[in-house]
C-alpha cells in the first residue's frame, strides 16, 4: 500500500515509490537523495517537519514536502509499482522518459 512519507511512524523503514511534486521540487528531492527505489527511515515523526534518514544522511523535510513523497513498506524485495525492479538509485529508462515528458 502506498502512503505519503509524512504518515510513516517513527523508526519505520520504507521504500520510495513515487514523488508527486512539480519539476523544481522533484529535482530538489532527487538531489537530496529522495529518488525512486531508495530506502528511507523516519527518525522523528509527527505534525510539522519530519526527520528522515536517506542515503546515509539525515534530512529534515517540511510536512507538506514529505506528503509528496509516496512510499511503500520495505519488505526487502522489489519495489511495488516502482519502475526499478530492485533496490538502487539507478535511473531506469521509464523514469527518465517520464521526467523528460514533463518538460
Amino acid at each position, binding site marked *: 500500500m502506498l502512503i505519503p512519507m509524512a504518515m510513516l511512524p517513527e523508526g519505520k523503514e520504507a521504500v520510495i515509490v513515487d514523488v508527486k511534486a512539480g*519539476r*523544481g521540487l522533484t*529535482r*530538489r528531492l532527487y*538531489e*537530496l*537523495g529522495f529518488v525512486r527505489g531508495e530506502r528511507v527511515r523516519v527518525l522523528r515523526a509527527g505534525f510539522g517537519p519530519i526527520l528522515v534518514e536517506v*542515503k*546515509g*544522511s539525515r534530512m529534515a523535510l517540511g510536512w507538506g514536502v514529505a506528503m509528496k513523497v509516496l512510499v511503500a513498506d520495505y519488505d526487502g524485495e522489489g519495489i511495488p509499482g516502482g519502475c526499478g525492479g530492485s533496490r538502487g*538509485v539507478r535511473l531506469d529508462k521509464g523514469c*527518465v522518459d517520464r521526467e*523528460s515528458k514533463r*518538460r
Partner: protein
Amino acid sequence: MIRVALIGNPNVGKSLIFNNLTGGRAHVGNWPGKTVERKVGRCVHRGVEMEIVDLPGVYSLTARSIDELIARNFIVEEKPDVVVDIVDASNLERNLYLTIQLLELEANVVVALNKWDIAGDLGYEIDVKELSRLLGVPIVPTIATTQEGMEELKDAILRAAREGKRARHTIVDYGRKAEALIGRIEETIRRDPELSRRYPTRWLAIRLLEGDEDALEKVKTSPLKDEILGGLE
C-alpha cells in the same frame, strides 16, 4: 599563488580539512551581500603559497539555495586554480553526485576521499586507482581527524595546479536524443565568444535544457540569445 577552493557535502569533514591545511588561521567574513560565512586561509607548501577558500557545504550545484549559488558562482566566475572536492568515503554514492556536477563544470578537481578509516571499518574496499581513472581526476584518501593524507593532498593540489585543466571528457552520457540537443545548443553558444570564454559550453547547454534560471539569466545578454533559447524548444 595558487587559488584553491574547498567544496563538499555537509558533514564530510570539510572544516577540519580547511583547518588542517591552513593551521586554523582563517580570515572569516561574509560573502558579499549574503549572511553566509566566507572563510579564507593561507598555506605554504614546498615554497608555494596557496590561498584556500572554504565554500558552503552543498549536496548539489543547482543554484536553488543561496549556498549552492555562492559555491557555483565562485567556481564559474572566479575560476579557482584547483577545486578540492571532499568526499565522504563512507557514503560514496551520495557524495559523488556533487563530484559529477563539478566535473561538468570543468573545474580542475582533486578529490579528497575523507573518512577513509570509517569506510574501512564499514568493510568498504574502494579501488582508488579505478575510481580515479573513471572520473579522470586525482584522488587522495584522507583522515582529517588524524591529519593523515594531508601532505599527499597538498602535493596533489600543487600537481593539479601545475598541470592545469585536464582535457575534458564526458562523464555522463544523457542518451542519444538529449546529447544531440546538447550538442546543437552548445554549437550555438560556441559562436558567442563572450559566453564560451566565461562558461563551460557543455555545462551551460545542459543547465539551459534543465530550465536553470541562473543559466537562462547568463545568456540573456548574448547577441545570440534568441537562437540559443530557440534551440531549447
